[in-house]
Structures are given as C-alpha cells and as structure tokens.
C-alpha cells in the first residue's frame, strides 16, 4: 500500500485505516495499475489542443466524452460502489471514464471527484485517445496510453511542427471504440456489447464501422493552419444528453437535443395489425411489430440497463374511453414495473426493449455489481419482433377503436435518479419518441 501511495501525485486520504488491503484492490496492469504508470500532468488538457484544433475542441466539448466524468448520475453511482467496496473497486468505472486518471494514480481507493486534476475531469479527453499506442483488449479500457509518444491519428500524411504525429489505422476500426464501449462487470457479466452486436451485423459485412455514423466526415481543416480535407467530426453523436444544465449553453443543448432526435427518428419502426372488425365484448388481438432499422447494432445498445426503451400502446373507443394501456407512466414518471414505487407490476404486459440486470436471488437490480444475469429485450440489427397484445372491449364499447403505439426511449429511469439523489433532474431526463403509429378498428 505504501508503495502504491508513494506514486500518487494527490494528497493521501487522512483516514488510512479505512483503506482496503492492497490485495483486495481491483487492479490490472493495463488500465487499473496499483502503481501509477506515469503522472497525469504529462498529458495535455483539451484546452491546450483547442489552440490549434478549435473545431474538434468545440465538437468534443459538448459531447458525452467530455461529460464522462462530470455526469452527476455516474458520479453518484461511483459513490455507491465506493461505499460498498470501501474504495477497493473505485477504478472500475473510472478506467474508461478517465483512462488517464486510473493509469496516472489519481484514482486511489477513497478518491474524491473534487480532488481530481483538470485533465482527469475532462474524462475521455483528446489524449485519452490520441496518445493510445495500441489496444491490449477490446473491452474494459483496453487502450495502452503513452504520454511521451506522438499524437496518433488516422489522417494520412499528417504533419505538425508543434508535436510529433503518427499515423495509425487503429483509429479507423470499431475495435478501438470497443476498448471502452464493450464492458464486462468484475464478475464477467456482459454489461455493454455494441461491438459484439456490430461484428455479426450487416453493417460490418458492408465495411461500415462505428466511426461511419458516430464520427461523421466533414470537409474542413484538422488544424487552423492545415489544409482543407476530409476530417472526422468529434461530436461522437449518440442518444445521450447531459443532465447538468451547466455543462453547455442552452443553445448548444438544443442543437444536441435535435441531433439526438434526428438519430432516433425511425431507427425503430412500429406497425400494428388488427382484425378487420371487432365484436363488442370480445378481446381484440393486436399484433405489434417492432423493427430495428439500424443495420449495425441492437436497438437499444450500449448501457441498455440505464436507458429505458419501451413500447407504449393505448386503445380508446369512439367516446374516448380508455380500454387498454401499456407502457404508460406512473405519476413519478416511472414505468409501472418492478421498480415502480406507486404501482409495482401494474403494467403486466410491459414490453421493454432495454435490459434488466438481475441479482442472484432473481430480483431486478440497477446496480451492475449486484447483478449475475442480464436480460435484454433489444432488437437485433434489421430484426422484426411481433408481440400480441389483447385489448378488452365491453358490450358498451363504441366503435371505432383507436389504437396508438409508439416506441419511446430516455437516458435514465426516474427511480434511479431519485435513488441517487438527483430528484431535480427527473424533468430534464427527457423522453424521445422513436416512431409512432395509430390504427382504427371498426366495431
């Protein structure tokens, strides 16, 4: 322990008695070394890069990569994990959220976010990628970083007088992204596996990779004094949005929000099939087909246990009497499933496309380290799944029936936000509609 702490640039915690024994600290040589590989101050903060790469900086600074360490929900979950393991697993989440931090010795057991240096708080910052020399594994922070090496990138023939540059095709591969976006819990449970999904997808067969969609190409300058050419945007566009209002300006947030909606629009399509006519008093069998129109990965993908994606279906009669609903929310804003505080299991037919973590006793849990199983309802690439729902009618029901369905997604379940003390963020945790359809059934 003493050896480990000697290398730390930050002050050691005062109460060392509470620290876990060295042999219980989660570690590995690539991303969670016991002894720091180097000092975090050997890395340049993004603001330095911004001097010559303002476009890339602007893209990145409003991206979820820049938000990785500032994400308050994430910080709260890290804190829960910190409490549960007395700090012994502090490096686990951090190994990706700040590759520089865990490798550079700032993430010691019992660390505190407010003690971290700026480059660590920048999360997945410029040099977390551009100083990567190789990939030791395609999951759980497999990037090998070298602060003394050149800046690496995939623009062929790049030259720079200010710093060394080296070409690497690694940046054009999905495996490079997999280095962090493929995640296994300490017990080996797969938590996120977009890379595996992509590997067997039509997109992979067609030669398209993560960067094709999530790092759009542009015709611009890589650096202020560089030539105009094809470059990559650094927005890393996904479906995440910051809960922290201070992270970016309302204008930037609005633009981001719009981009999320564009990305989500019609990436799942919903269609309804019903009998030609229904008989009052009988059940109407409604076939709901959901198709994942994405050919590169599941819908949803990534941290599907945090996100919620589900089907909402509401049936009303001609007078507006609601006959049936699933996927609607309780007044807390939660789905009416196991986790609903107001109406647990109230929605027996709930169709969730996102995933559920299951603890050893068979109960759902939202804490990844309590989970031994991971059940997903996600749709594979270009895959259609059809569900049958039964809409009851009575003799009094007045036709025609109107059946509306939509596929919805949001970043977090409200109960999780409340559980980690972010009650005031519940409203900002917006729901996006991916696709919607309505059908009428004569009675």
């Amino acid at each position, binding site marked *: 322990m003493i050896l480990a702490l000697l290398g730390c640039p930050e002050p050691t915690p005062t109460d060392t008695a509470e620290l876990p024994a060295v042999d219980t600290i989660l570690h590995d040589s690539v991303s969670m070394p016991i002894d720091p590989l180097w000092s975090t101050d050997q890395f340049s903060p993004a603001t330095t890069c911004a001097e010559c790469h303002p476009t890339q900086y602007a893209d990145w600074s409003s991206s979820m990569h820049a938000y990785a360490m500032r994400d308050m929900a994430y910080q709260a979950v890290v804190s829960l994990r910190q409490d549960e393991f007395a700090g012994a697993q502090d490096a686990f989440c951090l190994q990706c959220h700040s590759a520089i931090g865990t490798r550079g010795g700032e993430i010691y057991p019992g660390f505190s976010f407010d003690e971290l240096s700026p480059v660590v708080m920048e999360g997945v910052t410029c040099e977390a990628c551009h100083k990567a020399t190789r990939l030791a594994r395609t999951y759980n922070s497999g990037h090998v970083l070298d602060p003394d090496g050149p800046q690496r990138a995939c623009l062929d023939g790049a030259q720079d007088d200010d710093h060394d540059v080296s070409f690497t095709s690694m940046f054009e591969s999905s495996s490079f992204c997999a280095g962090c976006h493929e995640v296994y819990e300490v017990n*080996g*449970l*797969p938590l996120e*596996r977009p890379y*595996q999904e992509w590997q067997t997808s039509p997109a992979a067969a067609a030669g398209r990779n993560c960067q094709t969609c999530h790092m759009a190409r542009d015709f611009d300058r890589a650096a202020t004094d560089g030539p105009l050419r094809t470059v990559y945007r650094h927005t890393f566009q996904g479906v995440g949005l910051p809960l922290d209002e201070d992270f970016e300006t309302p204008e930037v947030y609005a633009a981001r929000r719009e981009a999320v909606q564009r990305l989500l629009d019609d990436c799942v399509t919903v269609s309804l*099939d019903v009998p030609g006519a229904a008989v009052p008093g*009988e059940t109407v*069998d409604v*076939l709901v*087909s959901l198709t994942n129109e994405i050919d590169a990965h599941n819908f949803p993908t990534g941290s599907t246990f945090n996100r919620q994606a589900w089907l909402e279906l509401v049936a009303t009669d001609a007078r507006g009497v609601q006959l049936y609903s699933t996927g609607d929310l309780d007044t807390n804003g939660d789905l009416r499933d*196991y986790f609903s505080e107001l109406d647990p*299991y*109230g929605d*027996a037919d709930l169709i969730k496309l996102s995933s*559920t973590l*299951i603890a*050893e*006793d*068979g*109960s*759902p849990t939202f804490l990844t380290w309590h989970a*031994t*199983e*991971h*059940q*997903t309802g996600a749709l*594979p690439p270009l*895959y259609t*799944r*059809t*569900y*049958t729902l039964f809409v009851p009618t009575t003799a009094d029901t007045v036709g025609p029936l109107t059946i509306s369905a939509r596929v919805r997604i949001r970043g977090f379940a409200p109960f999780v936000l409340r559980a980690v003390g972010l009650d005031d963020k519940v409203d900002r945790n917006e729901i996006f509609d991916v696709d919607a359809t309505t059908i009428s059934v004569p009675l």
Partner: protein
Amino acid sequence: MILLLLACEPTEDTGYVPHGSVAAGISAPLGEIVPYATDDEIATFARGQTVAKHRFTRAEGLGPGFNVEFCAACHERPVTGGSAGLYRNFYLGAGRTEDGAYLPGTSAGNTSGVVREYSYGADDYARPVVPDDTTILTQRNPIPFFGVGLLAQLSDEEILSRADLLDADGDGITGRPNYDRGFVGRFGRKSQTVSIEGFIRGPLNNHVGITSDPLSDERKAELPVDSSGGSAQLLKELAPLADGLSGWAQAAAPDAPLTDSDEIADPEMSEQDLFDLVSFSMLLAAPEIEELDADGREGQTLFDQLNCGGCHTPRLQSPRGPLPVYSDLLLHDMGDDLADGIEQGEATGSEFRTHPLWGITADGPFLHDGRAHTLHDAILAHDGEARASREAYEELLPPKQELVVGFLQTLGGRDQASPGLLVPGAAVPAVGEYGGPVAGLSDAQQAVFEAGRILFDTDFGISQGVGAPRYNGDSCRACHMDPVIGGAGPRSVNVMRHGILTDDGAFVVPAVGTVLHKLSILPGNPNRAQPEANIFEPRQTPHLFGLGLIEGIPVSTILANADEADTNGDGISGKPSWTDGARLGRFGWKAQVPTVAEFVRDAMSTELGMTVPTQDRLTFGKLWDDDGVADPEAPLGTLTAIETYLRFLGPPPRQAGEDTSLGEALFETAGCADCHTPSLDGVPLYSDLLLHELLPEGAVGIEDASANMREFRTAPLWGLAKTAPYLHDGSVDSIEDAILGHDGESTASRDTFAALSADDQAALLAFLGSL
C-alpha cells in the same frame, strides 16, 4: 521409487515402468457383474438392477420432496450404475450459525443438505424454497458406482498407509483420511461414507423421497460384501478395534429408520428391494483397464512424471489383489476455485476425495460439479495440492497432453463412452417402433435422421455454452427420453414455470422469464425465484413422436374445429393459439410455438441455455447470453439437424393386442373426442390442437402467447401408453387419474366417465392404453 525400479523390468520405452498387475477376475465392461459372482448373486444383481431402474410413483412413496424418481436417473452413464450429464446435477446446501458452527441445509425435510427441486407436499408445493440460512451452496454431479464393492473390501490400513498429514515427504501433497462411524471413509466426493448401504439409503431418501429401514443384521450378513459385525451399538463400541475388518466397516451403516411426511407408509422400500439394490451396487465389476500400446505407455510415463499418481494412486491392495483404482481415496485440498464450502466429516470446504480414474472416460462430465466437459479441462481445473502437477501438464506441448488424456482413456470404458447415452453402434429403431422414423425415407434422409438423432442425444458442456447462466438440461434427450430418445420425460425433468400474480389478478412475467430453471452454471445459485413470484406450475415433458406430421396439418383443418364463442352451445369452445406474427401455435402445453424449427430454437435457448443464430423468418430463441461463450453457441447445422430429425421422427405406434372398439365407442359418446379429435388431416393424434379452459374457475397458472392461466392445448393422446406421468404438471401416474383431473370445459366428459360402469371404464382405459 528406487525399490519400484528394481522390481520392474523396464520396457523398450525410456522411463516407462508398468503400474503393475491387476487382480484377476474383478473386471468387466461397465455395468456388468463381477466375474466372481455366484449364481444366486447373479439373480440378485438382476433384481437389484430392476430396482435401480424402477420409477417410483407417488403411490409408492415418491417425495413429497424429490429430485428424481429412480436411482438410474442419476446413475445412467454410460449404463446403469454410472454417472449422468449435467442435467442430473443437484445442489448441496449448508449454513453457519452465528457462532460459526456448520449445519447442513434442509429442503422440504431433512436431506443432509441436498436441495430438492420438486415437491408434491401440501406445505411445499412445486419448488421447495431454499431457506435463507442456507448460505453455502454448491453443485454435485452424480458419482459412478463401478467397483464400489471392491473398494468396500479395502482395509482401513491400506488407505491410511498413504496418508501424509504433515507432508512428511515434502512433495506438496498431504492426503488426509475421512472417517465415518470410526471407519475410514471411501465413498462420496469427500470420502464421507464407509458403507454402501448407507450410501444408498441416504440418497434414496434425499433425492427420491423413498424411505427405508436399515437392513437387518441377518440380511447384512448375506450381502455380497460381508457386512456382518453384530449390532450397531456393539459396532460403535468396537469400532476402534475393528480396523481392517471390512465386514465390520460395511456394517457401520446408519441404523435409524427413515420417515417422511407423505401419506405412504414408511418404509417405502421393502427390505428385499433394498437388499437387492445394495447387492447390485456391491456386485458392479471394476472397469477393465486396457493393455497399453506405445502411446499408452508414453502417456502413462508422462502421468508418472507429472506426479498425477501422487494422489491418483495406480493400485490399491485389496483382499482380491491389486485394484487399478487410480485413487488413494484420501482427502486433498484442491484450491479456492474448486472449493465448495461443504464440510463432511473431517473434510473441509476445499478438500475432496481423489476421484478414482478407473472408467473415467465414460462417466463425464468431470469434477464434483461437472464443470469440465473434457478430461483436458478437468486437469486444467486442478489446483491446491495438485497445482504443481497441473502446471507441469500445462507446460507440455499439446501432443504430449493428448498422450496423458489418451492414457486416462485406457483405464476402462472407452468402448462404452458416448457423447450422450446412445452406445456407439446401437441399433436405430425401425419404422413403426417407438423412436423410429416415418415411413418412406430415402437412404439419404435416413442418414440425416440418424445423424440428427445422435445430436439430439449429445450432452453439451458448459464450455460449449450450456447455461446462460441458467439451464434445465444439457441435451435434448435429457428431457425427451421416455420410453426412448425423442419421447416424453419423467417428473424429474419437469420444467418449472413461475409467475407473479398481482393483487388485481394480472399475470406478470418474472425478471428471468416464466421458466424457473433447475440449474445454473454459477456454482452456488439454486435459482431462487424472485420474492414476488407466487405462481409455480411444473410442466411435464411431452413426447415428440410425429411432430413433423402435426406440423403438416393445414391451418384450415385446425381452424375448422375452432368455436371460440361456443356458438354450437356444447360447452366446449376451442380457441386457436396465435403466436407472434399471427401464426398458429401447435406445439407446447399452451400451443405457444408454431413450428418445429422454432420449437428447437426455443428449447435450445430456454432449456439448454445455448444461444442460436438468427434464421430467416423464424423467431423464438435467445441470440445472446451472459456466459462468456461466443454467441451463437448452437451452430445452425446443429439446429437444422435436430429439426430435421424431429420432422422425420415417426408417430407413436398403436399397441397391438385386444379389441378396443368398445372403449373407442365410449370415447366418442363420453365426449372425449370433442376436443381429443381422433384425426386431423389423416394424422391420428387425438387432439384438435386448440386451447380449452381446463382448470376450474378461479385457478391460477401461467399465461403464454394466446393462452390464459386456465387454458391448455388439448394434449395429443397418441403415445399415451408409454409416456406417463400425465397432465401438464405431471402430477398423476395413471390414465384414470388423468381423466379425473380434467375440469373446466371437460367437466361434463369427466363426470360421464366417472359415472360409467367399472367394465366400461376399464374398456375406455384399455382403449386409451392402446394409443
């Protein structure tokens, strides 16, 4: 070592020293009787084998809590008396008191820690709850019985001579004896038992729920291995003096009668049956080890150089001569990964008996919980005292490792080893026999049928993707075995469905799905249901004969019998089961699966826990799971081969015999045929393949696809004769009880049957028994 070298003539292979001669007249193919048996013993052996294969019914005392209904359920591989696949694993539980004392777990009664998967008890329906104070849980794969009568004859001194409690020879290997009633233990994963009678009566109660009294002293004295020794009390007193007297050791069986809480009078097994069963076990021959060829000699030399024999002692000296046990029968610490936390006698949580290697190649999967699918994997899992040997093995080049494994395969049973239960070269049932193909297959189709049948029988391993992490079986045959491969399943492979019934009567699927699996690849996860689950419904395994014919019945033929609103007013509705995509469901208790291909996909994923590839236009089946094996785990070729086998699997044959026309007429007049339509499109399946409400008003159960809690598909009656137990939960043993178990829409027909004269009832039952 020097002494050994002097005593043995080195052969042409450098370093090869034979392990020595073996007692004459002790070995035979696995499952056969010892050559030295008397004529009386041969007759006893045959009777005992029958007892081992006998399936206990509830009327005979099965349960109330149980895991299996017969001995050979777990001791079947490659033949009765052996081991079994992963699907026969069971859980062993224990806990600690606050002050640290170790207590074996209980499960629907006192079970010495065995967790029971099923119960028909009034207080403990369906799946007994694992008590919260059971905090230590592990799994056990069944253990083979071959040669146990010979091990019983070993003297305590012979075993004790290799004990090395303080590692005096400094080889890193200790070896501690376990004790049972003052004698040196030798049976069980922890050598916790000395007497074969004890090793039979205990599991018979814990796993089958069959109670027994100890054999009388007179019967003990008649056993093939002398088990005389006076009263149990006397034995206890004399135990310290009795070392080396095998008879006395064998007499040291638990002396208390066993009782249980079902309505069947204890003891549920007669003394004669118990005597025959114990005799059968004692008479099972030792595996026949092979003459070594050059490769075998090289493999044995490597085995010796790796010091495998440090625990896997090649020969133990018995009164009949040297036994090729390849075990010292002592306890060794096997390291943290194998440790199971179970304490038995002297054995700690990380200690295990050296597993005898005779016959090892035919009784996989390997290790105490069957986690290793191959001998190579089993060797690699060795740790603790065996670490040096394992590391040395790891350093060998693959061809040398294969020689070591090859040597192990010479230790008996090689010819009987099979990827499943089908013995190599066994005859394939002919057209018209149970399990035979449909008529008219071309030679090429017949070849596909036979190849698919072998895959259907093949046990898959955890390393091949079984479990995700939950599973029910490790092969298709694990459940579909009665009366032959492709058939129905006994109660012990019932699938447990479960669900959550909310306060307002809605059915909610639990987080893990409605199947509450029997097993898990996690070492200690008894698949507790989530606390909210409050409906448990066992599902008996239906047979698969004639599946392809059912698939070929036109949708219009099935729909022609549908009468959802009971417009004809006969009290019988008949609702088509629409599955996803508006396709008509035909298979499963709730007609929830539309095609044979999807039935295979669903079973592969749900029952075996193996993921499947996407197939055009087909749903069902899991595409990914969490077990660390690359998905899809079941290759497309495997799926299609099994699917084709099932399509080609012939219908169950009618039983030849007496005239059943009276019964057949009664079947019509009683209204049975209203749902059990004798024929659809020329297929004599005795079902309309429609859903009917069969449970009484207010009953709760599992919802699936179109079927509500009380609805079930009309069960096809063809094959009824050979596919007990009956009803969706396998709760009854006779056709008569099955009829009386009908309710809901079939109440009128049931009452008609009950009102028939005894002769008419018998005629109807005879007809049904002929199907």
